[in-house]
């Protein structure tokens, strides 16, 4: 993390795409259970992790997000049966391609969180926030106004 960013008390801003049926409910459970996790995420609820277009991720980074988290139902538990399984292939390619061109792999992370896993959600956000905090502000794809 850069000195300047540290001085200004920089906090990572992470855009979290959560699926309506599992991860969003998992986040809700974490909140209802009063679990503590870093206030670094901005949640966007999507109907299914299969709804994620790689352009969502690129747009978030371009708009200045320091990291992106995408989370859906565990494989096999998708509300739409196979949305997350089809998405998984897409995610694997996106993650690999972004890393290939030189974007830190920790900037864009994918996970599975079920509606009953409030603790897992809190821990996931902690981990992603920690990872992104180490990298510092995201400047590579951010559009300079």
């Amino acid at each position, binding site marked *: 993390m850069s000195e300047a960013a540290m001085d200004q008390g920089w906090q990572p801003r992470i855009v979290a795409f959560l699926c309506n049926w599992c991860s969003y409910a998992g986040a809700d459970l974490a909140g209802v259970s009063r679990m503590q996790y870093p206030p670094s995420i901005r949640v966007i609820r999507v109907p299914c992790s299969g709804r994620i277009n790689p352009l969502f991720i690129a747009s978030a980074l371009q708009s200045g997000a320091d990291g992106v988290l995408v989370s859906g139902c565990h494989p096999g538990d998708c509300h739409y049966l196979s949305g997350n399984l089809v998405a998984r*292939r897409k995610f694997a390619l996106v993650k690999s*391609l*972004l890393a290939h*061109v030189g*974007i830190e792999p920790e900037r864009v*992370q994918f996970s599975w969180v079920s509606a009953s896993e409030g603790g*897992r959600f809190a821990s996931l956000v902690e*981990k992603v926030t920690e990872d992104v905090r180490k990298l510092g502000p995201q400047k590579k794809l951010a559009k300079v106004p």
Partner: protein
Amino acid sequence: MGDAAREIRRIAAELFDGKKIDVLIGFEKGSDGYRSRPVFVSSAAEAERLAWDATCSHNLAVYLPSLFRRGPQKKGAESAPPRVGVVAKACDMRSLIALAKEKQAPRESLFVIGVPCRGMIDARKLEAEVARAAGGVEVTALVDGEEAVSVETADGRALSFAREPLVHDACLECRFPVPRGADVMVEGHARPAGNNGDALLKEFAKLSETERWQKFQAEISRCIRCYACRQACPTCYCTECFAETNSPAWIGVTTELSDTMIFHIVRIFHQAGRCSECDACVRACPMGIDLRPFTKKIAADVREMFGFTPGFDLETPPPLLTFREDDQQGFITEPHRG
């Protein structure tokens, strides 16, 4: 005129005489010796224009989707789709199958004249060689030999160069130089199948993250957003491209660097399961941007992760439209607890 060209003309004339096709897409001689020009032929007489030599680099499958794109049809009164002949190298053939798989060109409406490929001559490499030997003169004729390429320059000189160093990088690495699944094959020999095991990618992957980013940025910063890469690509067939929609306006339309980088990342991503690694995008680029280390990545990943090589059979579903329960998911973040 080479044997292949004669053979293509004969087959084309036969097809037109037998009323088997309405139009044939092939090549004719270009305005200089460096390049051949795609041509649409619609009668046996016109078929005399057809040519074939080592400068037929373009991927002709790019013209197919627009030929089969039609407005709404009245039920019961649908007009028949055109019957199209295509002269295809192995890479054109693979793109054509990828298009047929995605219902952009019905395979039964196509008649493919397959031509075994010895590797096409890279006009840029040849131009550089000619410039070195004779200054920047035009080339009026090109004769493709077994080991050498001889050219005649506009000022009347005859030059000869070794063939192999002039061949496109894509052709040097080509793993499938013989078209598979053509309706008729033109006789001839193909170059031996290459396989360098993605050496270029491995070399690139050895660079540090910062170096890879710098290289990506340096290449993409030269992009003028002309979209030639997209237009030249046979499997980039959307009628409305994310780069140009304004609702939502995914990216800006200028050459601002982040917009341009996202355009290229997403364009390359969209070729997942389609890219036949023909390098049409690279050849089309007027800025000479080296897209290869990036475009090849998506093809290699699809091959490694999903065991899919595009362009061979119509039955296998495209890899991103399907899944396996045991697809690898090592990239999934596991939190510390929970």
